[in-house]
């Protein structure tokens, strides 16, 4: 990426803390000792953060976008096939083209491949649960996967995470980096989940995907749409 062009476009808008979870969210117990306690210090946006890594197709393997195929050993993965697609946009609605997304998730039974996951539910030998893709010129991405299952965790008595897919995005700079989770409409676990509820009220719904009959492929897979909005840019360079 041409850093001179970035310089001419002005600062990135700030992180909108009315949208993002505060570091300390006591109902999610792990935040208690892992939340910075001192106020963040404002920093002007120099080149070291206005720039950022740019990934191309050489960062991808051919099946990275298809989690129903990229973990196969001896057959098809078990579970409900689904397509998840959407657009990556900035706050002014402009597409974020050619940016990398990474996703990871549990299998249909709510079990992760991760070797620490000891949940008593089966691993699927044909499902790995991680993928990558690049957005196209219109900011659109598309994955094929298996709908993840809910799973228990130790945060509190009878705690269950709602089904979710982890998303990681880069955008045009080191400042636009975002890691989030996508949820499913109507999940009865959402109102009970301290991670989802760590997000300010009124912003949480942005993490819930939409079922789409238009994305759904007949006799093949259900479709969900999930758009993601990254930090945008001020229209004019800010100096001084």
């Amino acid at each position, binding site marked *: 990426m041409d850093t001179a062009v970035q310089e001419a476009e002005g600062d990135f808008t700030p992180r909108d803390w009315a949208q993002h979870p505060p570091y300390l969210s006591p109902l999610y117990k792990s935040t208690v*000792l*892992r939340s910075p306690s001192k106020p963040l*210090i404002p920093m002007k946006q120099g080149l070291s953060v206005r720039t950022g890594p740019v990934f191309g197709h050489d960062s991808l393997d051919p099946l990275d976008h298809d989690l129903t195929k990229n973990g196969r050993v001896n057959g098809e993965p078990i579970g409900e096939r689904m397509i998840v697609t959407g657009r990556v946009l900035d*706050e002014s609605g402009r597409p974020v083209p050619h940016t990398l997304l990474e996703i990871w998730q549990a299998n249909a039974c709510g079990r992760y491949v*991760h070797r620490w996951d000891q949940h008593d539910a089966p691993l699927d030998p044909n499902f790995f649960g991680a993928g990558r893709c690049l957005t196209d010129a219109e900011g659109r991405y598309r994955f094929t996967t298996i709908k993840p299952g809910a799973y228990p965790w130790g945060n509190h008595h009878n705690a269950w995470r709602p089904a979710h897919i982890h998303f990681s995005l880069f955008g045009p700079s080191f400042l636009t980096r975002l890691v989030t989770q996508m949820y499913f409409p109507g999940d009865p676990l959402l109102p009970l989940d301290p991670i*989802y509820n760590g997000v300010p009220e009124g912003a949480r719904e942005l993490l819930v995907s939409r079922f789409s009959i238009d994305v759904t492929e007949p006799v093949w897979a259900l479709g969900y749409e999930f758009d993601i909005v990254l930090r945008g840019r001020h229209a004019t360079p800010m100096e001084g």
Partner: protein
Amino acid sequence: MSQTLKQTPSQTVGPYFAYAWTPELYGRRPLAANRLVTRDMAGEHIRIEGVVYDGQGAPIRDCVVEIWQAGADGRHAPGAAGFGRCGTDDAGHYFFDTVKPGACDPGHAPHIAVTVFARGMLSHAFTRLHFSDETAANEADPVLASVPADRRDTLIATRAETPGGVVYRFDIRIQGDGETVFFDC
């Protein structure tokens, strides 16, 4: 800018990101790794290492540190060559093998941008790493100057010459005594 859309909220990486982010142990190709340097790369070859601690001083083993830096000439290479990612091990330890960057912003000391993700962090945290041997440049650096004097040393990696090469120590304390300075930018 006319703001018509709201930023998508952040969520934690959770505990189970390693097979996606640092998947070598799972036989997969990583997007990025913690060895940014190649043998013939210009500049001083260095290791940056440290431990990430929680508010009780316990090491955090499910944490990822990402860095973004200029080359020795102070320029950001095209692509992702200046990007590194390292998950902490069971002792909370991370490291990067890289080159010492040149200054990329006029008036700023050489530095590396750092992002920290972890289970228990619903939003990631930004900081930046300066170098202990850049005394004069650090004294003139406007970002370091904006930080209370008694917290500045949390941003300065300490240089040591070891038999294996130059090592800069940069511990990250998420909370509590010696809490690392994190930025909003």
